[in-house]
């Protein structure tokens, strides 16, 4: 049985390599998209000036204290601060060019002193903000509060040490102290997951189409077991997926400096387990699908949901808490978490043992469904 098994795998791999569209879809396109996502989510843009939050400030007070606040804000690396008239600043927020517009009112300093010493009414710094940037708004509020404290130390309690009486040092929790987070590590893993699932769907659709062709009849007329016929297809698909992982992460290593900071064996095992899972997923698609046309749309929808909920596009921590809780059962999340653990978190094999086991269990479940439900007599 080994001769036909190997021959069928060789045939599949040869056909894949001859299909330029398939190669393009499984290698070049994920590299392009992963490069873009990596750049946007911390690979380059996330850590650079281009991601500073645009803020406009209107200082109607004009006191040394309020000018100090503006200076502190302008000195903050997270903000890009410009001064403007109140109306122009508000219009800029409405146009989507500015995230927040701050107005320091007239007599702000005087009113604040009164509030502090004579228990008067507290003055307010008004902020108009773009509701689509709610998360950034919280950050701006914190920075404004800090700037007000700093300016108070310099201009109200001169010489006194009333500024924030401690420093905060932030360190990225990457593999080693001092290592910078490389967003490409996540994006290449995520796009690999997405496009390999697409390959799995293509394998399934291909089987549905082939089932109606003469080559399928010819193969079925030969003394071959169903396990050899489906198993060879799954194996060739898994080999293709594994090769794709190698190309993707080699590219990420050479071009973007992505390193496997944790267990290399764990990384290989996560990639292998996911490759096998996508292959058996493809077989299951072929087993459950009736026609190629009807199956393709549904399979692509399921794939995109799996990819999205698995955190392949954006990390799962940005999801609402309830969604984070639900997505722990999504196979793509096991793969994504596993890759994150060994690629940039620098964790050991133990951190990926459970994801690997879950993916292998899913592989077996999908394969069992495929063998049981595959329609051999079309």
């Amino acid at each position, binding site marked *: 049985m080994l001769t036909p098994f190997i021959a069928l795998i060789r045939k599949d791999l*040869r056909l894949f390599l001859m299909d330029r569209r398939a190669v393009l879809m499984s290698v070049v396109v994920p590299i392009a998209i992963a490069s873009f996502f990596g750049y946007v989510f911390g690979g380059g843009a996330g850590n650079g000036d281009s991601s500073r939050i645009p803020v406009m400030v209107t200082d109607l007070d004009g006191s040394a204290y309020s000018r100090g606040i503006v200076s502190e804000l302008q000195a903050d690396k997270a903000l890009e601060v410009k001064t403007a008239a109140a109306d122009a600043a508000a219009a800029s927020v409405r146009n989507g060019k500015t995230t927040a517009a701050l107005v320091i009112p007239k007599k702000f300093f005087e009113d604040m002193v009164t509030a502090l010493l004579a228990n008067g009414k507290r003055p307010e710094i008004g902020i108009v903000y773009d509701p689509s940037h709610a998360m950034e708004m919280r950050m701006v509020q914190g920075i404004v509060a800090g700037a007000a404290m700093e300016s108070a130390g310099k201009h109200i309690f001169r010489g006194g040490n009333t500024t924030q009486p401690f420093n905060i040092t932030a360190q990225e929790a990457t593999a080693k102290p001092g290592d910078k987070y490389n967003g490409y590590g996540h994006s290449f893993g995520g796009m690999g997951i997405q496009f390999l699932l697409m390959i799995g769907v293509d394998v399934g659709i291909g089987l549905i189409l082939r089932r109606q062709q003469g080559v399928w*009849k010819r193969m079925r007329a030969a003394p071959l077991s169903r396990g050899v016929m489906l198993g060879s297809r799954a194996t060739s698909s898994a080999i293709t997926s594994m090769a794709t992982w190698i190309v993707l992460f080699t590219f990420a290593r050479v071009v973007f400096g992505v390193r496997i900071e944790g267990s290399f064996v764990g990384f290989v095992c996560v990639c292998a387990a996911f490759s096998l899972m996508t292959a058996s997923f493809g077989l299951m698609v072929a087993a459950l699908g009736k026609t190629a046309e009807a199956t393709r749309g549904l399979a692509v929808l399921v794939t995109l949901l799996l990819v999205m909920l698995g955190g392949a596009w954006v990390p799962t921590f940005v999801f609402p808490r309830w969604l984070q809780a639900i997505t722990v059962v999504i196979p793509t999340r096991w793969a994504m978490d596993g890759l994150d653990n060994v690629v940039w978190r620098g964790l050991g094999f133990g951190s990926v043992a459970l994801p690997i086991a879950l993916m292998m269990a899913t592989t077996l479940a999908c394969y069992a469904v495929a063998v049981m439900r595959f329609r051999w007599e079309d």
Partner: protein
Amino acid sequence: MLEVAALRKSYGSLVAVDGVSFRASKGETIGLLGPNGAGKTTTVSMIAGLVRPDSGEVRIAGRPLRGDTDPTKRALGLVPQDLGLFEELSARENLHLFGALYNMTGARLQRAMDEALTLVGLRERAKDRVSDFSGGMKRRLNLAGSLLHDPQLLLLDEPTVGVDPQSRNAIFENLEMLRKRGKTLIYTTHYMEEAERLCDRLVIIDHGKIIADDDLQGLHRMIPVANLLTVELANGSAGALSVDAVKALEGVETAELRGSTLKVGLRDLALDSPRVLQWLVERGCRFEHLASERASLESVFLTLTGRSLRD
């Protein structure tokens, strides 16, 4: 070599094959003849083990066919109606794969590929991609792919569909060569001339049932019309002619008038044709052309089923 016993297969309420039984001896060529949808392909699929019959049995060389990996399958080769080829691969790559499906490797496989390519006349094109082949060449390679493991029984499901007359002739020559080598051929077709040329015996199927199983002479004996007389009538002669009146003449079995062409089915050409022609002359008909031919398988099928093979 092949025994098919009471095969039955239905899909829902549609009975595709209904109690089909026949035998084929070693070296015999059997034609499975019937219109599209008659049940020929389903019958062949059950013989090849592609479709499990609801009931009945297939025996090849005395052994029943059981399961996907039954070694008995090595005795049969299937030439599928849809081309069973990978168009992106070369002819040799296709054959290499098909041989490997039967566990063939190395020099044995190389030899088998060379022989098969030589038989179908494609040895010079072995390294070319199948997608560059003409329809006829693809059909010939389709045949070659089924010969590598040297099967004793060859199932040919409409192997000449869509090919030009020259390629069809080449395929016939290939099949005649295989007959000479003692292979048993089961040949499905709805082309009468193919069946008449190739087959020792004909099994006529309609609506999933066998309606005749005999050699060519036996089938001809089943129909009353031995000859067909075709009369091209001169302008105006056909106008007043009554087909029913022609049919009523002694020795006339069928009569059909299309335009100015009258076709009359006769029991005996020598006895009955003068009578018909005399009758026509007496009614003022003039002839432009006369022809006669022996009744064909088409007539046999028409007589047995009441419809044409290509309906």
